[in-house]
């Protein structure tokens, strides 16, 4: 498979006088495959948001390089093409909607690309349909719930027809219902439309649908692998300032007690099946 993102030896340091004068991101090497679903986990200040902003040139590397679909972020003439290919959704749902009407906000990106009005209309309608917000297309954004606002923000990115979407803690400010809406929508985008998804979060539960889980701590990657690989290393997760989902916590303790379970199941149903299997197997 082809890589959409190539990161080589990336280091980024904020200006010396800022409180985070140590390197926010240090010596990162990372490739992201086209069409994959990657979750990047880390506590606040682990460097994960800085990494996100380095991906589309909002920040430029102090050392090393980032390229998106072969385009280097340091080359200024690439920047619009990179931002079109790699869309970004942020944490605060209120602060990324520009216009006063939902459908006009979704049109904002394509309008900046200078597309024909008929093409913009087509893309806006289809993006709203994809995130299931068509019935709110004339609504004022401030009347929507947090989850709906984030879906509008997603539609605004989709209308630019990106190949990759990076979401920086998109659910941190949402209630459980909104969180579910957003996670379901991005999972669908990945599975049905083949869009590469990079989800940055500190909710480990959200890693459930990921092909690949990356853990960041102090600006470095401390784990990288499948959900099972990463979640079975509980020591590493606690050290990275993260909390195991309760289901995984339960499975890990059972494993320590000698039960034959693999502690990588997040949903209650899957975890229960795993426990059931171990109990019935009678391997104690």
């Amino acid at each position, binding site marked *: 498979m082809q890589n959409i993102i190539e990161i080589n030896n990336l280091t980024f340091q904020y200006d010396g006088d800022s409180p985070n004068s140590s390197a926010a991101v240090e010596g990162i090497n990372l490739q992201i495959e086209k069409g994959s679903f990657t979750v990047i986990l880390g*506590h*606040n200040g682990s460097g994960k948001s800085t990494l996100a902003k380095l991906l589309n040139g909002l920040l430029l590397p102090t050392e090393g390089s980032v390229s998106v679909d072969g385009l280097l972020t340091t080359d200024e003439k690439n920047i619009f093409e990179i931002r079109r290919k790699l869309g970004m959704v942020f*944490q605060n749902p209120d602060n990324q909607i520009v216009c006063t009407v939902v459908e006009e906000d979704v049109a904002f990106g394509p309008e900046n690309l200078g597309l024909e009005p008929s093409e913009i209309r087509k893309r806006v309608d289809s993006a709203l349909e994809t995130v299931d917000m068509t019935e709110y297309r004339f609504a004022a954004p401030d009347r929507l719930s947090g989850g709906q606002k984030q879906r509008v923000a997603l539609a605004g990115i989709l209308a630019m027809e990106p190949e990759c979407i990076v979401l920086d803690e998109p659910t941190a400010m949402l209630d459980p219902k909104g969180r579910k809406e957003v996670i379901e929508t991005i999972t669908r985008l990945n599975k049905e439309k083949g869009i590469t998804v990079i989800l940055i979060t500190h909710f480990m539960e959200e890693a459930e649908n990921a092909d690949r889980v990356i853990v960041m701590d102090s600006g470095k990657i401390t784990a990288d692998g499948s959900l099972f690989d990463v979640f079975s290393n509980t020591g590493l997760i606690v050290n990275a*300032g993260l909390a195991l989902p*309760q289901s995984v*916590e339960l499975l890990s303790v059972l494993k320590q007690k000698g039960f034959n379970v693999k502690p990588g199941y997040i949903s*209650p149903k899957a975890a229960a099946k795993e426990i059931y299997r171990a109990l019935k197997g009678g391997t104690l």
Partner: protein
Amino acid sequence: MSEILKTEDLVFSYNNGSPVKRAAINKVSFTLKKGETLGIIGHTGSGKSTLVQTLNGLIKPESGTVFLDGEDLWKNPKQVYQKRFRVGLVFQYPEYQLFEETVYKDIAFGPKNMGLSEEEIDFRIKKYISLLGLNLNYLEKSPFDLSGGEKRRVALAGILAMEPEVLVLDEPTAGLDPVGRENLFKAIELYKKERSAAVIIVSHSMEDLARLSDKLLVMNLGEAKMFGTVEEVFARYEELSKMGLDVPVVTKILLELKALGLNVNTKAFTPAQAIKNIELLLKEGDINA
């Protein structure tokens, strides 16, 4: 212990007197004793935020009464202001209300409004910044230079320094990472123990509430649908599920195991309890229901 806070049939609606009048809370009653923690559960828009604002008199209920230590909060409307120091309310994202040049001055804002002496204010500031796990050289920093988690702790210190008898927190850990969350809960527990204060926590996390609360209040469409111990409320998981509310993940796992045919006791709301129940299952030999 004695009841510190009690509400009786609280009613409040928005747009009162207009055709689009909508009840935000409708006949909400509960009681809270000193040293107890009450968890409030409910969807966004279920009336939780309105309810907590009636408890310190920011919102005057249309009908019904809030009793603070046995006395009607609105008995003398001119003195409701004083009650806000006794029922400390920490809003969601409280770090956004910091405004002073230094952490010291910001924490002092509440105590100053209470009219405390300089020495007493100084004493409390130092006490509560330490209780929140920040050292004293934070006091001269600007609150705007701190990290998100630190700002949140400073904001909480500003309320704790008023030494409220009832501490009310509206989603205190929203947006915090797990470490920040643990720090905050630790501080709340410490404060509660030291002052034998009553605590009310509004949260979406059933796991957090299961471990912190003595009692739970379930709000739905402005009404108090359930009020009881953690065990009593989570035992009614079917009703909760109908309201679109959850039970803790471990409880769900046990319920799934039961559905798979195992004879497991589903009364467990923390991982430790759940493990005990699963182990018990093996000891009893016959695991099938």
